[in-house]
């Protein structure tokens, strides 16, 4: 649009700003009461945030994630979704998802959690880190004013899942830790109605909020982005230690857990790192936690790097299997044999996958049909 035209058009379109745009509402939501495009003239949500404390001398400190943002009046925390108003802290995104889809559970990826089922998947704007490789940066690195939001209460969300017969809700795409209050309320209500919840997260969350949340969840997938602190500092904009602590906490709570490690060429792809990673997982989480190596594609701030070579991913797979991890997968490589699940006892293919589709299923309950070995997970 030419600048002059742009200036003129601003006048015409501004008049329409308060009209809800039906194009923003996905087809499968039409007709649902309380699920509509968000009307920005109402302002963002003002639900009081959890886990913050008022500071002496003014300001608050947020305790949801290890950043512990100290925020003065009218300012926001690092995630851009929480705002201090006269020393009361508010979440601005409660009930305002900017992405909503029905996805195969394999897309999360969760391979040992009700394979072949679907999850109503949602995200809001914002994130508590800033990964240079983020594939959803257009929502994760935005503030809620900058995204097209829907207006869906927790009750309406469960209603949609029930009516569409989707058994799970997935909090995903951006970082659910930053929409903690919204996620908790949906998950709690979901359990009352028999709808399960899975959190897809970077695991950068404080101990107490995680402990309060877990009873309302059914599985967690954590992106363990590296096993090195400097990578977290330079590439992720976060810290490794709190993520490792959260992983141990999740495992100790008995929550179903799977891990993803995105292999970024030249940044976290050495054999030493794969060995260290496998060793840490085996020691602290056990050999049965599934580990998915995922292929990197250039995007966001890492457009200068090539996609991960297949042989690097295969090397990672080989090293982790040799180190004693039982379930190691390769992702973003459709058709590769390492997308499928094999019995560690007899080697039989248990779940044959291509992309997100399942072509063969050889489990009886949670046991290998061939050798009767118990396979960990929820099947």
């Amino acid at each position, binding site marked *: 649009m030419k600048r002059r035209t742009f200036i003129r058009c601003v*006048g015409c379109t501004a008049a329409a700003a308060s009209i809800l745009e039906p194009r923003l509402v996905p087809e499968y939501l039409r007709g649902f009461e309380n699920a509509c495009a968000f009307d920005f003239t109402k302002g963002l949500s003002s639900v009081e945030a959890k886990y913050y404390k008022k500071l002496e001398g*003014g300001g608050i400190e947020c305790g949801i994630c290890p950043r512990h943002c100290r925020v003065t*009046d009218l300012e*926001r925390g*690092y995630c851009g979704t929480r705002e201090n108003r006269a020393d009361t802290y508010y979440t601005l995104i409660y009930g305002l998802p900017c992405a909503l889809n029905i996805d195969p559970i394999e897309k999360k990826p969760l391979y040992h959690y009700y394979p072949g089922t679907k999850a109503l998947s949602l995200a809001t704007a914002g994130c508590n880190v800033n990964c240079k490789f983020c594939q959803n940066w257009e929502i994760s690195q935005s503030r809620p*004013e*900058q995204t097209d939001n829907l207006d869906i209460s927790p009750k309406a969300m469960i209603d949609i899942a029930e009516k569409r017969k989707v058994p799970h809700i997935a909090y995903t795409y951006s970082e659910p830790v930053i929409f903690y209050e919204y996620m908790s309320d949906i998950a709690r209500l979901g359990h009352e109605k028999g709808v399960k919840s899975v959190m897809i997260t970077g695991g950068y969350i404080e101990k107490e909020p995680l402990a309060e949340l877990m009873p309302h969840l059914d599985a967690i997938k954590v992106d363990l982005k590296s096993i090195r602190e400097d990578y977290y500092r330079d590439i992720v904009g976060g810290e490794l230690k709190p993520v490792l602590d959260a992983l141990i906490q999740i495992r100790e709570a008995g929550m179903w857990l799977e891990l993803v490690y995105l292999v970024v060429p030249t940044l976290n792809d050495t054999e030493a790192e794969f060995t260290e990673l496998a060793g840490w997982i085996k020691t602290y989480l056990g050999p049965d936690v599934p580990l998915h190596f995922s292929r990197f594609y250039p995007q966001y701030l890492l457009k200068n790097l090539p996609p991960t070579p297949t042989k690097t991913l295969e090397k990672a797979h080989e090293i982790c299997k040799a180190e004693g991890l039982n379930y190691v997968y390769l992702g973003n490589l459709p058709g590769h044999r390492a997308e499928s699940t094999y019995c560690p006892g007899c080697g039989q293919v248990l779940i044959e996958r291509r992309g997100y589709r399942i072509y063969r299923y050889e489990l009886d309950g949670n046991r290998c049909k061939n050798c009767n070995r118990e396979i960990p997970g929820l099947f």
Partner: protein
Amino acid sequence: MGKNYLSAKSKYVYNKYMSKVVVVKYINSASPESLTKVQYGQLLSAGIRSVAGAKDINAAVRGLIPDGVVGMKVNCLARKANSTPVKLVEAMTQILTDAGRDDNDIVVWERTSREMKMAGFPLNAASSGCRFMGTDANAVGYSDDIYTSGEVNSRVSSILTDVVDSNINLALLKDHSIAGLSAGLKNMYGAIHNPNKYHDNNCDPFCADVSMLEPLRSKNRLTIIDAVRVQYDGGPGFVSQYIHNYGGLIISADPVAADRIGLEILERIRKRHEMRPLREVGRQVTYLDTAAKRGLGVADMSAIALEVINVNAGGRLSAGELI
């Protein structure tokens, strides 16, 4: 001294390698809490003429602001109590239109229309007249491209990238709970989509890097910092017990030098109120030196040609003191 004050020989050594900053103060019997449009107009006229080295305000505007659409980035974070005053914007708009600018070619802008409205600005995203609009006004938004400079990677308001040819940074002098100083450079956080990511380490180097982003660097032609009422502690929100009526504007074509003088004023006001220097309360302002190292402007006081002008109720000018 009368009308010819500006043509009088400056008592400061000033050469082309120094950055000029003008502090222009309204002198009245009582410290003014707020100024009228006319009073702001007097300050702006004296200050802009001095910065441009021109006797005539229209010539000064022509010298400083290139032809085309002019943006004025205001700071509306803290509602009416502590935002860029509407009267200042009205006075600057008047100066631009008197200098021959079409009011269709003036865009007063901020991050969101809501913040502007709460700061008392009349919104106008219509097709004629001076526009008052947030980046979130319909069909505006942020650049598709991510602009990168140093540690900052951001989308930039399309008002700045696509609509205006040049920009006047109409900031406010305030203490800031993290950055220490909120003035011109900090105001430009409102031009990017992800300012929340850039508050670590007292906003250093981020404050410098944001203003180094193209097109911010090339389009920002003039910095005007309102220091009529200075929030010398407890900022950037409004805390009434820490307001000092300074009654001045800081004006410069060098964004770093303008902020450097702003910091000097802020620290002297804090001292007068028996408050500790910012570095002693963990809010050291290191981003100005970083900005100077990046080549954005001058942060060294000895390389800044500072001129302080007093304007009295009759509009007469005289040499003044910083504080």
